């Protein structure tokens, strides 16, 4: 997919995020928006998947280790055709198949239930190992928060993946710099993130995670990397695309009210217009 199309789609994914969280009156917009370009690239370009056959045996797998950003995953899945975009506002509602955190039994396209931080990466490692054991060529992607990597289990998983040289695994860290209690370096700094993954025998790529040229190049490089898993440290802007959410820890886990929702959608409409104009 061309960059412009990806940008337009990412903007649609962002609208879906804001709409879902507004509909839920709760949820996590900040980290969903920061990773929207990565969600979009994975589901619209990178991964070998089939929305009509979500359980296709040799599909690439994605595990949202930072499960609280389910709105981002759901919006990407809906826009990709796994289920109707119109259902996004049922997020977190009683009886909805869009649970607050990803549930593989409820939602088409969700490869692993997740949300308790630090656990998703281990499951992704298990999937990558399964491919190796069976000589299959599917790849496994997992997205972590930069706050999430404070969890010790992340490094247990990284040690195993590095030790086993799982080159079919890509770990993406959404480095938006903010966690609930504030800046990650003020709460309990995980920096330097790249050096840590390097020490665990990962091939590490630092990118601007809101730039499709850099995202594309990184995933290409990951695919070409043999004998090592890859970690993509994606520098992003929390709340990206919505003026009043950008760079604000306060929008980690808060839903916009009706007035704020209107402003957010206007922001995104404006971006769509600009992108349309450039076409």
């Amino acid at each position: 997919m061309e960059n412009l199309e990806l940008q337009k789609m990412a903007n649609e994914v962002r609208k879906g995020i804001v709409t879902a969280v507004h509909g839920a009156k709760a949820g996590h917009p900040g980290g969903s928006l920061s990773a929207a370009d990565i969600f979009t690239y994975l589901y619209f370009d990178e991964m070998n998947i089939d929305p009509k056959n979500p359980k296709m045996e040799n599909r690439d797998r994605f595990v949202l280790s930072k499960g609280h950003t389910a709105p981002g995953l759901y919006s990407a899945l809906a826009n990709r055709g796994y289920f109707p975009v119109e259902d996004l506002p049922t997020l977190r509602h009683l009886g909805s198949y869009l649970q607050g955190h990803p549930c593989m039994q409820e939602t088409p396209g969700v490869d692993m239930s997740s949300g308790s931080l630090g656990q998703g990466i281990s499951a992704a490692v298990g999937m990558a190992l399964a491919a190796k054991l069976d000589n299959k060529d599917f790849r496994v992607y997992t997205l972590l928060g930069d706050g999430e990597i404070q969890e010790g289990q992340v490094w247990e998983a990284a040690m195993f993946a590095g030790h086993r040289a799982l080159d079919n695994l890509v770990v993406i860290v959404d480095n938006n710099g903010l966690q609930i209690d504030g800046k990650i370096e003020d709460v309990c700094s995980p920096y330097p993130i790249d050096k840590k993954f390097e020490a665990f025998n990962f091939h590490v790529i630092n990118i601007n995670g809101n730039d499709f040229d850099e995202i594309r190049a990184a995933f290409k490089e990951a695919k070409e990397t043999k004998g090592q898993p890859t970690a993509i440290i994606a520098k992003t802007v929390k709340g990206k695309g919505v003026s009043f959410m950008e760079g604000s820890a306060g929008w980690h886990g808060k839903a916009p009210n009706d007035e704020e929702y209107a402003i957010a959608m206007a922001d995104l409409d404006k971006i769509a217009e600009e992108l349309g104009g450039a076409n």
Partner: protein
Amino acid sequence: MADVVKIATRESYGNALAECGAEFPNLVVLDADLAGATKTGVFKKAFPDRHIDCGIAECNMTGIAAGLSTCGKIPFISSFAMFAAGRNYEQVRNSIGYPHLNVKIGATHAGITVGEDGATHQCNEDIALMRTIPGMTVIVPSDDVEAKAAVRAAIEYVGPVYIRFGRAAVPVINDQPDYKFEIGKGVLLKEGTDVTIVATGICVDSALKAAEMLAADGISAEVINIHTIKPLDEEIVLNSAKKTGKVVTVEEHSVIGGLGSAVCDVLAAKNPVPVKKLGMQDIYGESGPAAALVEKYKLDGKGVYADIKDFLK
């Protein structure tokens, strides 16, 4: 008198895995640096490519197993009960239980018969933890025969299963030709009319011995082996309680949340009778030889006999 054959159920675990390996090509076994102790080394030797040592990282091992199972593998994760159920509780709950994945948890070195290592490694709480997880099957085999049968049954069953094994060698009591293992089905080992003894794991043997001693005193005890704590065979417990009117539970586990609690849940709701729960009385274990600990905490035949006599006064 023929010598009583004694085998630790952890040995049975390793042997059963190795025996099933060829028949179930999707079976994989994971360890966290304890393959020598959990006895999965036998499987590792036979199927080196399907044995995965995760290092001392039980939580990650649990997640890896979850991931493997989503790709069609039947993973057994092996560790001491303290770590497999204790350290791992939330990983088991969220990464295996909630998505109802086909992962089996082989927990060895459960209870006080860990012995000399002492309280930090003597898990008396694992049954309680595991039975709170929706959809989790919890099995506590009483000997070698039952342990091997349980491993096979777990492989054939689709869904999460927790199986509890011990470190110490215990008498083989189920080596009858008509022995049959069925998940969720209790076994009536001895009929009686005065009191029901419901036991699990190594305490089944103690219950049988206690019943013999009670018989010498003219007390007729019914003995039931509950190898599956969850789902519990309610029928066998209720039928017996209706007959005897008094129930004693015996387990190498805390009296809070384990077999005793499971039995009380059923009886309280459907047929209330007096119950005495034998086990670890809300305390930690300690270092010492396994047999001496079992005696001290009154989980041997003599101790169970004495407590039942007291209960029937």
